[in-house]
């Protein structure tokens, strides 16, 4: 029988946890648990997932203590990668607790997790407003507001910012400096999201610069500094006050912030220079702190205060930098590279001074310093030192993970044998830097291109181990550039390229380089005497190439075949041709069933052409069919390739009015032609091609050549269909030639070669022949290569129409080719409306969406694209609510306007002051 006083289970539980934390794991227990389960990752994971389920239950409990405890643990567990956004609502409950301890936990959790879910903040707005009510009556009130401000600072959204701005401004008048500094700092995030608040209360905000408390001044300067980075204009009027602070204050932290701030300001206001520069130089003399000296140099250089003829200041800064560089402290050596980089940009006359310094920094034992130093190299390269720089850099590959004995030029020669690890990322950077240095300004620094091809093949070998696709692409691109741009070096480059393509390691480890290599081999196949061997060589390994390389190989094979068949000096045996054709057909047949579309399509096209050739050879055993000896080469060899400036081709497309409507062939014409073709098939193939000479528009011919070559034009945006229309449309051609003043041979893409009016084909063949005669005839050696160094001419990029487009350098061209890989990348950008905010206009409540767009435009990453979508979505959803807010505002607006007119008067006065300040000199 149960007694009346028999304890129920809940009673027992209550009794057993008098302080609320008995049954459940506290954070301490959790940490202990993690420590004791730390032996294997699996065990830890199992433990943590158990804890998580516990927390899940505890968070659902109505008991606030229990809930808080669970939230605290979850906040801790986020460190181990467990998302806690699912309990955002519970966090909100804990935040609203009256107990400060619980509130603290709530706000901590909120600042960590609320950014993932903007909706929860709408629920939190009222709570935040309540927590921000500061009566100043007792201490716990101060703490409460402090906690709220702290939590707030990481989670401000545009709508929240608009709602709480007034509360924060009222807090600036608090008697407690602790509140003032926290409010000022919280305002920073509000201004980012809601710049109107800054515009309307600018003076109130700026008055905090004259606060009695140093922490408040410091916070204000910090906020202005951050804001001025995004939009410096409105703060220029504050420069007299800021200047006063700089002169009078004794706090290095604030001085550094001020220097940063003045850097931002003087970038847009050159009048600050005469006033500031003497003061900064004086500061550098007086101060003991290296950090202040360093920031002063930064301020002078980045703030554009160093004029070209001001050698005194420059030398002064330089001396300081040199002393940093000689320092024992690696941190000082590091920063010395940071500011030299800027200096070089501004004043190139000091290049020779820096040459030695940079070379020394390149051998520093700290990889961070080296990494900074190689960024400086592009400022000092010249024709004379390119090879030396290269040797310096190459030595760094060899030195990997070895013991770095002290260099005799350094002062720490006693420290011998410190082993450092050279990370792969640094080596990748080295490769990129070498390429960039050499290719600068259309290869103007390269004297000996033979040397450069050696460099490239060295780099290719090195890059095998670096596991970075981009490097292969980059090196391949360089080979292609040299091939196209340096005609006299083509033979030598060809040998290098063939070596690379036949290198087993590269084929397996760095296949990204092969695309461009094979393209070069195909395009300049006239340097290859025995195409048959080469074709067999390529075919031997063909299946080990990735499909994207194979699709480049296919046209390359055809080009080689064409050149080989066309060879006049050394007539080839028809049986050899048949053998090669057989092998090629074998390959194309198998790859016609490839699951990679592009590869499949190209194979099918090539296959049909080759089968035709074989057929024609069957019927005529004497000599090669015209299809191979004339038609195939003519597809590719029409015009000489020339380098083309980036964007030129696209421009042609933009400017061209393309008639896609008018049929080039009437139905009747088409029918007659196709009948013709059928007829030709049944007869012998020679007559077909004699026909072709007079009638170029045979669909067969056009189709095959078009398809063969089309994929070469990677830049081309036009769809296949449009392209075809262009090709068959003589109107288009005429325009191209006459109106745009384009010579066909200016086009980078050989695909355009096939477009010709009838009379040009015969001339074309001659042209190709002539071309071959000019090129050195093959020797008896298998691949004839000669080395002629001088004179080397580097072809410049050809520009067709500079109207509207700027001539872009090769470097920038390469950069634009790179897509921004944003997957897995971290972007710290906080979206803000401040950059584009116009402080002079007063009505832009509705322009939020516009502004967002503009902000986003600056960044091209996918991530921001996503953000933009989110933003527009969010603003779309919020529309009804915002209407309400705007209505409320209307009342206030009148007051605002009054105060604004006052403000304007004030600011006008201020402006006058600042003007006189600026005009002093």
């Amino acid at each position: 029988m149960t007694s009346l006083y028999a304890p129920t289970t809940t009673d027992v539980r209550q009794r057993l946890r008098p302080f609320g934390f008995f049954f459940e794991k506290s954070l301490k227990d959790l940490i202990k648990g993690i420590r004791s389960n730390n032996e294997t990752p699996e065990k830890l994971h199992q433990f943590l997932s158990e804890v998580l389920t516990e927390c899940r239950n505890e968070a659902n409990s109505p008991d606030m203590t229990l809930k808080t405890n669970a939230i605290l643990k979850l906040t801790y567990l986020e460190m181990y990668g467990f998302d806690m956004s699912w309990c955002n609502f519970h966090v909100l409950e804990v935040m609203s607790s009256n107990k400060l301890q619980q509130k603290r936990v709530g706000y901590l959790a909120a600042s960590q997790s609320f950014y993932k879910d903007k909706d929860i903040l709408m629920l939190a707005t009222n709570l935040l407003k309540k927590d921000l009510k500061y009566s100043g009556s007792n201490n716990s009130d101060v703490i409460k507001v402090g906690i709220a401000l702290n939590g707030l600072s990481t989670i401000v959204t545009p709508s929240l910012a608009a709602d709480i701005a007034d509360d924060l401004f009222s807090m600036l008048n608090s008697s407690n400096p602790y509140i003032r500094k926290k409010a000022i700092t919280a305002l920073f995030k509000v201004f980012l999201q809601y710049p109107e608040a800054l515009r309307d209360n600018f003076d109130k905000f700026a008055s905090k610069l004259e606060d009695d408390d140093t922490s408040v001044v410091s916070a204000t300067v910090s906020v202005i500094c951050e804001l001025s980075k995004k939009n410096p204009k409105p703060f220029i009027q504050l420069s007299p006050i800021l200047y006063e602070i700089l002169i009078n204050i004794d706090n290095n932290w604030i001085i550094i912030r001020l220097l940063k701030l003045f850097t931002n300001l003087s970038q847009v206001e050159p009048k600050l220079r005469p006033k500031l520069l003497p003061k900064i130089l004086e500061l550098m003399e007086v101060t003991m702190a290296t950090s202040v000296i360093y920031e002063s140099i930064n301020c002078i250089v980045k703030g554009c205060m160093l004029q070209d003829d001001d050698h005194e200041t420059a030398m002064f800064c330089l001396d300081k930098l040199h002393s940093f560089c000689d320092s024992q402290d690696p941190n000082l050596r590091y920063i010395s590279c940071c500011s030299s980089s800027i200096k070089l940009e501004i004043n190139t006359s000091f290049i020779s001074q820096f040459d030695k310094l940079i070379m020394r920094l390149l051998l520093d034992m700290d990889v961070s310093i080296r990494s900074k130093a190689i960024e400086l190299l592009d400022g000092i390269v010249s024709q004379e030192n390119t090879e030396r720089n290269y040797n310096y850099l190459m030595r760094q590959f060899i030195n990997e993970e070895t013991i770095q004995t002290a260099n005799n030029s350094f002062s720490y020669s006693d420290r011998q044998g410190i082993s450092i690890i050279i990370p792969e990322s640094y080596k990748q950077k080295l490769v990129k830097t070498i390429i960039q240095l050499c290719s600068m300004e259309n290869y103007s620094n390269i004297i000996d291109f033979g040397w450069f091809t050696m460099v490239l093949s060295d780099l290719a070998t090195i890059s095998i181990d670096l596991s970075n696709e981009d490097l292969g692409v980059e090196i391949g691109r360089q080979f292609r550039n040299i091939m196209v741009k340096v005609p006299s070096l083509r033979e030598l480059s060809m040998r290098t390229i063939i070596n690379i393509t036949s290198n087993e390691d590269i084929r397996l480890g760095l296949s990204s380089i092969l695309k461009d290599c094979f393209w070069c081999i195909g395009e300049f196949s006239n340097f290859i005497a025995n195409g048959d061997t080469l074709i067999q060589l390529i075919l031997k390994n063909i299946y080990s190439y990735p499909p994207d390389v194979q699709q480049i190989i296919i046209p390359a094979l055809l080009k080689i075949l064409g050149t080989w068949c066309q060879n006049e000096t050394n007539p080839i045996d028809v049986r050899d041709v048949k053998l090669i054709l057989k092998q090629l057909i074998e390959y194309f047949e198998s790859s016609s069933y490839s699951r990679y579309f592009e590869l499949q399509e190209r194979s099918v096209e090539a296959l049909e052409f080759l089968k035709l050739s074989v057929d024609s050879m069957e019927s005529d055993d004497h000599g090669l069919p015209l299809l191979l000896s004339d038609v195939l080469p003519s597809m590719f060899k029409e015009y000489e390739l020339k380098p083309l400036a980036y964007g030129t081709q696209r421009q042609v497309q933009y400017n061209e009015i393309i008639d896609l409507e008018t049929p080039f062939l009437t139905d009747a014409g088409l029918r007659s032609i196709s009948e013709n073709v059928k007829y030709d098939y049944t007869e012998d193939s020679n007559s077909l091609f004699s026909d072709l000479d007079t009638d170029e528009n045979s669909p067969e011919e056009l189709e095959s050549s078009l398809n063969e070559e089309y994929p070469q034009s990677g830049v081309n945006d036009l769809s296949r269909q449009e392209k075809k229309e262009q090709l068959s449309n003589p109107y288009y051609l005429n325009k191209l030639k006459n109106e745009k003043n384009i010579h066909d041979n200016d086009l980078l893409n050989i695909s355009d070669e096939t477009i010709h009016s009838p009379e040009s084909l015969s001339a074309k063949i001659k042209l190709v022949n002539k071309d071959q005669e000019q090129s050195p005839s093959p020797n008896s050696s298998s691949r004839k290569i000669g080395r002629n160094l001088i004179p080397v001419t580097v072809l410049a990029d050809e520009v067709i129409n500079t109207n509207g487009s700027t001539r872009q350098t090769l470097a920038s061209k390469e950069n634009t080719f790179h897509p921004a890989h944003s997957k897995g990348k971290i972007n710290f950008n906080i979206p803000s409306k401040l950059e584009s905010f116009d402080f002079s206009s007063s009505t832009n409540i509705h322009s939020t969406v516009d502004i967002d767009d503009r902000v986003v435009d600056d960044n091209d990453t996918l991530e921001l694209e996503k953000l933009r979508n989110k933003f527009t979505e969010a603003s779309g959803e919020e529309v009804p609510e915002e209407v309400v807010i705007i209505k409320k505002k209307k009342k206030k607006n009148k007051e605002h306007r009054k105060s604004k007119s006052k403000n304007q008067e004030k600011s006008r006065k201020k402006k006058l002051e600042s003007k006189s300040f600026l005009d002093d000199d």
Partner: protein
Amino acid sequence: MIHAVLIFNKKRQPRLIRFYSPVDLPKQKLLLEQVYDLVSQRNNDFQSSFLVTPPSLYTNSSSSSSSKDRNFIDEDIQIIYKNYATLYFTFIVDDQESELAILDLIQTFVEALDRCFTEVNELDLIFNWQTLQSVLEEIIQGGMVIETNVNKIVSAVDQLNKASESSDSKITSSFTSALQAFAQGGFAQWASGQ
């Protein structure tokens, strides 16, 4: 501003992760791993406190020294760390923060911790994660430095703890006094006392 503060030990166990800019959790983890990899390769006695940019922070894969890329974020972000005994204190900051000033700030942070715990060691920080958070909150708010004075930082933390305790105890004390009043004088007296 300061974008993130990472504290971890030599075995890559996180001790504190605080991001002031919105970054997804998986990316936070990735960044921690990459930063750890970079830090652990370094010789702290002879090498500087600055890290080369980890791969996840590159926004553009092309060569970094052309002028166009200078504006990109990977040039701006600095990772600055200091090693104390078994722990690494890592700050991820942008170009508006001075490198050397941040080094001082890390020093201030550790001094403040030292003051709070007297002779701070890793174990203290492991079990007093909340205190670690509180101290950091008094130094950095939303990515902005609000205080660099060790005395002020420590006293703010003390005040925070005192206030939290007193507010909690105030409720319980008023409750106990109510109980006492009820026991002594009955309901009427207690009610009149309210």
